[in-house]
């Protein structure tokens, strides 16, 4: 499993209220949510983002409300992977549970700049910065979570186990 795309870069403490503001939570339709993704922090994101792109942020990405609408919006906007120094824990769970690949890697999160072309190898947990010609070792998922991700989410995983 791999991701390859252009990086969109953000700072510390990007909260789920700016990823998808509460005023849009009256729907759970992924496409509708994607059309408002990041709107309160970066109005132009929805116009710039291309299928396969990669979102990079610093500390505590996805803090705040537990709304699963946040990873859903990010995934539906075309983002193939989120890289951050650290993730807020509910966001972390949610992303795994809906099958949005995320990876913790402080080095990559600091070094990658907006516009860099980035490739992620999930099996090895390695991130390549093709623009800068550098690579970073990210945190690999524990086996249990790998199973959930490979099943493309918790629901499929439970279905396959039952």
């Amino acid at each position: 499993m791999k991701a390859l795309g252009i990086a969109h870069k953000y700072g510390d403490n990007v909260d789920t209220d700016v990823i998808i503001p509460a005023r849009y939570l009256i729907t759970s339709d992924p496409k509708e949510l994607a059309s408002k993704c990041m709107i309160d922090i970066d109005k132009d994101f929805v116009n710039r983002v291309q299928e396969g792109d990669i979102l990079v942020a610093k500390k505590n990405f996805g803090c705040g409300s537990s709304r699963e609408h946040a990873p859903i919006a990010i995934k539906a906007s075309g983002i193939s992977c989120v890289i951050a120094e650290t993730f807020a824990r509910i966001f972390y769970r949610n992303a795994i549970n809906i099958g949005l690949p995320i990876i913790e890697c402080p080095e990559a999160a600091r070094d990658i700049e907006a516009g860099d072309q980035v490739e992620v190898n999930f099996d090895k947990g390695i991130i390549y910065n093709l623009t800068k010609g550098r690579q970073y070792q990210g945190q690999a998922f524990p086996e249990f979570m790998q199973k959930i991700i490979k099943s493309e989410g918790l629901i499929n995983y439970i279905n396959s186990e039952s």
Partner: protein
Amino acid sequence: MGMTMTQKILAAHAGVERVTAGQLIEADLDLVLGNDVTAPVAIKEMEKMKIRNVFDKNKIALVPDHFTPNKDIKSAQNCKYMREFAMDQEITNYFEIGEMGIEHALLPEKGLVVAGDVVIGADSHTCTYGALGAFSTGVGSTDMAAGMATGKAWFKVPAALRFVLKGKPSKWVSGKDIILHIIGLIGVDGALYKSMEFVGDGINNLSMDDRFTIANMAIEAGAKNGIFPVDEKTIRYIKEHSNKKITEYKADEDADYEKTYEIDLASLKPTVAFPHLPENTRTIDQVGDIKIDQVVIGSCTNGRLEDLRIAARVLEGRKIAKGMRLIVFPATQKIYLKAMEEGLLSTFIKAGAVVSTPTCGPCLGGHMGVLAAGERAVATTNRNFVGRMGHVDSEVYLASPAVAAATAVAGRISGPEELGL
């Protein structure tokens, strides 16, 4: 090495003798919670599952509180979808708006959570029930779906931080000031993935409502859960509200804490969190001159009876500033009724406030008090993120009910002492 209080509860619910930080476990759930925003997503997920029915219709709580009474057609559709599911699955603890309240105030009041329970809720402030000595934590909708179907959830056993609370807070210092002070100290990711365990003799001086407020905001420091030991006050509260069996867990003497903080409650002052993070705290004497357009008193953080009593004490016989909007939203119908019987609501209305039915509305910028560009609010809620209560160019300052009420009177951020109280 011993276990923390949280670890003991988790071990018992995973059916193992002991757990250590970092271990992945599957735990049995005593309650699974969802609201009108998160439950519809969970119900849709559950429809994709092979398991058709909820694991136990008495162990699910569904609370339409965010966009209720329905603010528009889409939110009405969401609520209808959740209601139909609740009826179809014969969910015992589904609460229609007339018996409703904001979920985290409602569940303890209805006796649905007691000491020793493991609770997940598809809402980040599910950590509130740590005040009762339960392990409770926020999850997303997919976890909720899996929890409703299987009665289980996966957890990574958290490491812990210990907060030793000492002494007695002064007159206008409440649970809100204590937790804001702590978040200011450790930052919004200061407890990321960890438990916050509150201990110390200072806890005796905190009411249950103070403890609910403190546990409620553990998530604002990134914590997985916040938890209080079970004492006489806890047991009295639970017995008044519930018939469920209490199990008391105590941290081992040699439990492992990554760090211990000592907090002298007597030294704390009323504290305000400035935009746009709960960690941007300043004590009331350091706030400067900040003009405020709207004050909001309520929410799952500070919409309980004691909060309303404090606000009424400040507002009694006073009028709010010209041009100020004061919105009071009691957290549950029961609190609303009590506040009415005690005359608190009439104090609010006479002071110039509007009093709203229980709803999350203004707290998340949903309805009932959304801010325009450039406006500033003082709120007793828990989040002051960009755009949280409305326009991206509005600002939210978090404070206690006492400071909020005094601010409504003064028209700028003020403590009750500035009103001569």
